[in-house]
């Protein structure tokens, strides 16, 4: 499914950053008083918020709560399983 290069690059950056946060989240679940990863988590969290806002303003909503700005954009394709993340190969 076609997706433009700029939106794909930003989406993949968001995916990578949010994945790092999931990994930190699991670590913090069993080490809740470890301060350094907590600090990194907070930094990533700010960056992710900015990146998602940029993505959603330019290319479309990631979650339904951000989908209703004058038109219903939630149903727009592509869905995650349709995207050609490597644009036809590496």
């Amino acid at each position, binding site marked *: 499914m076609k997706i433009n290069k700029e939106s794909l690059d930003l989406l993949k950056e968001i995916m990578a950053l949010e994945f790092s946060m999931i990994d930190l989240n*699991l*670590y913090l679940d069993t080490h809740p008083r470890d301060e350094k990863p907590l600090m990194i988590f907070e930094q990533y969290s700010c960056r992710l918020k900015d990146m998602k806002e940029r993505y959603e303003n330019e290319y479309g909503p990631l979650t339904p709560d951000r989908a209703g700005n004058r038109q219903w954009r939630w149903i727009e394709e592509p869905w995650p399983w349709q995207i050609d993340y*490597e644009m036809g190969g590496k």
Partner: protein
Amino acid sequence: MWIYEKKLQYPAWVESCDLRIAKLLFAQYGGPDSELSAGLRYLSQRYNMPIPEAKAVLTDIGTEELAHWEIIATLIYKIIERATLKQLEEASLGAHYVQHGRDLYPHDASGVPWTAAYIQAIEDPIANLHEDMAAEEKARTTYEHLIQSTNDRGVIETLSFLREREVVHFQRFGETLRLVQEHLDRKMYY
């Protein structure tokens, strides 16, 4: 509750059209040690965990497993999307096609439907967490078997990511088990 986010956890990609690996990937979509089993097991076990860390770990890993389930589905979808009936038949996916078309369905690599009998929840947190650690190890081994079964670079990269996650989950469950054990020991002494 859960909120759907329009992205995958990992940019799953396939290089070619290895239909044989598509069939085998059903092991992780609806097999005994599949991502589906993992997710439903952890999310069922979390309610009576005795310490907050354990409730969080089971909730968060259970949620991550559902994201992995979606990644496996995406790999299979991408491989079989454009396959003809003849190609599907040649890859022993003819029976799948007759019953499900090109849709996903939770059965294992040989077509056996998923069953809740693959998983358990028994309130005893020590017993539950041991099951979870074993499940992560079995899933890791399944990924290694799958990686040995294909030459597709995209599939191998994606499965290597998922394999690595099983290692991390095993580690987190081990830490959780230790925390729960310490909690139970303290309760015994005071």
